């Protein structure tokens, strides 16, 4: 059976699933809107979590939390379930498809066969929508892909029960209750306030302070860790910032798009101006990526080069600090 489901490509999987499921239920919510209301924008250095043998850096909120906040703020209810038993997980999925209900699934990327090999790492917080089943083949709408695709039931079970950090455990979710009308205005204000709070938080690894902290680390890496590791870590930062799903510039462009869209909805022209500022900050992040890539391209980089990109990060941190203080004021 196939549910009549419209696939729209998005930059980021979680926002994309939210946006596509909302559109399916008749609410036109764009990807940036889902991202902004869910306060997806962040910067965080997570020293104790190692990803591919390097410390983790993230430019977004924890997996799953964007949808959680979005739902709470616009007043929809979501049903979520996790399973111990793959059989049970499959039964629940099939029931929903039979009831004409497309569902979101959390999956691991490593065994996702339609991804290019190079992109298949042990990352367990990918999201996609299942919108039908034909014999033993599931119809998949993966928001980062241009078109819909399919997975066999074996393949789907494998990715639903991937192991490691953030193991999905068959996580299935779908909206079950909608308000008469989405209260976007209040939700937008809440979303922005939360993002400002996160980015200006007095915690050394979070937000603006986290960016400064990272700059300090970069200065130390070549001496403390050796050039090889330093380059590996630097590459990790760039990958987290620019890899598929960020929309470019570590989600800064999506956030700018959200501010632009919001400025008309809540009638605050100031947000449109701030959107331009955020776009410029996104450009700075990309300049940083270009210069960082020059370092890890040549194995023999000068120490100066690390200091250089670190300084770039510090400039970005200063700009973002000013930006989020202004944004906080604008929304009052």
């Amino acid at each position, binding site marked *: 059976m196939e549910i009549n489901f419209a696939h729209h490509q998005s930059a980021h999987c979680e926002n994309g699933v939210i946006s596509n499921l909302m559109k399916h239920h008749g609410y036109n919510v764009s990807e940036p809107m889902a991202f902004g209301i869910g306060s997806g924008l962040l910067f965080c250095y997570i020293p104790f979590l190692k990803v591919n043998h390097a410390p983790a850096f993230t430019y977004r909120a924890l997996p799953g939390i964007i949808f959680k906040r979005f739902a709470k703020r616009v007043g929809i209810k979501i049903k979520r379930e996790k399973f111990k038993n793959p059989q049970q997980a499959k039964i629940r999925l099939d029931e929903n498809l039979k009831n004409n209900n497309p569902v979101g699934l959390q999956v691991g990327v490593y065994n996702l066969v339609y991804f290019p090999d190079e992109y298949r790492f042990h990352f367990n917080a990918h999201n996609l929508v299942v919108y039908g089943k034909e014999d033993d083949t599931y119809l998949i709408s993966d928001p980062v892909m*241009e078109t819909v695709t399919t997975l066999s039931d074996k393949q789907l079970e494998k990715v639903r029960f991937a192991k490691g950090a953030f193991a999905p455990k068959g996580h299935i979710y779908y909206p079950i209750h909608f308000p008469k009308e989405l209260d976007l205005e209040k939700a937008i204000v809440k979303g922005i306030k939360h993002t400002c709070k996160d980015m200006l938080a007095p915690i050394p690894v979070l937000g603006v302070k986290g960016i400064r902290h990272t700059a300090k680390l970069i200065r130390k890496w070549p001496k403390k860790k050796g050039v090889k590791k330093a380059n590996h870590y630097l590459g990790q930062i760039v990958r987290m910032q620019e890899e598929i799903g960020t929309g470019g510039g570590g989600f800064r462009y999506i956030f700018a798009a959200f501010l632009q869209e919001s400025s008309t909805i809540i009638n605050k022209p100031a947000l449109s101006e701030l959107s331009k500022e955020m776009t410029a900050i996104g450009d700075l992040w990309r300049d940083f990526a270009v210069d960082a*890539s020059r370092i890890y391209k040549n194995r023999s980089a000068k120490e100066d080069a690390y200091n250089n990109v670190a300084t770039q990060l510090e400039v970005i941190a200063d700009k973002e600090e000013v930006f989020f203080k202004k944004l906080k004021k604008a929304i009052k």
Partner: protein
Amino acid sequence: MKKDEVPQDKSNLETANFKELCYAVDENGEYTTVNSSGWDPKTIALNKAIEDINERVEVAKKRVLSNQTSPIEYYMELHKMDLPILASYVGLWKWRVKRHFKPRVFNKLSNNILQKYAETFDISLEQLKNIELHGN
């Protein structure tokens, strides 16, 4: 980023024949989405990461052949895993998995435990015991 500045570099995305979505502003300063075929700075970062993994696999292979570690470590690296991920897949404590890296311990493992590793790596028991039987 302006619409016409969205990078269209060659990348690994080509093999799967898809383009990713980016956000950029058009001539009127309005946000829109543009497909990108890739961007060199991140392609280089990704290729470096893959090179690092291949290097780790090679080192592990040599260590297995010179009897310094067990094939489990080799297959772990081959599957881009680290200790916590592998332990989680086979459902054992990390220290136990680490112990199984010792050739002396590995050689005494029961078929029951070996089977767990073989299933995780999607290989036969023979391949698990002898990495040269593995095609890759």
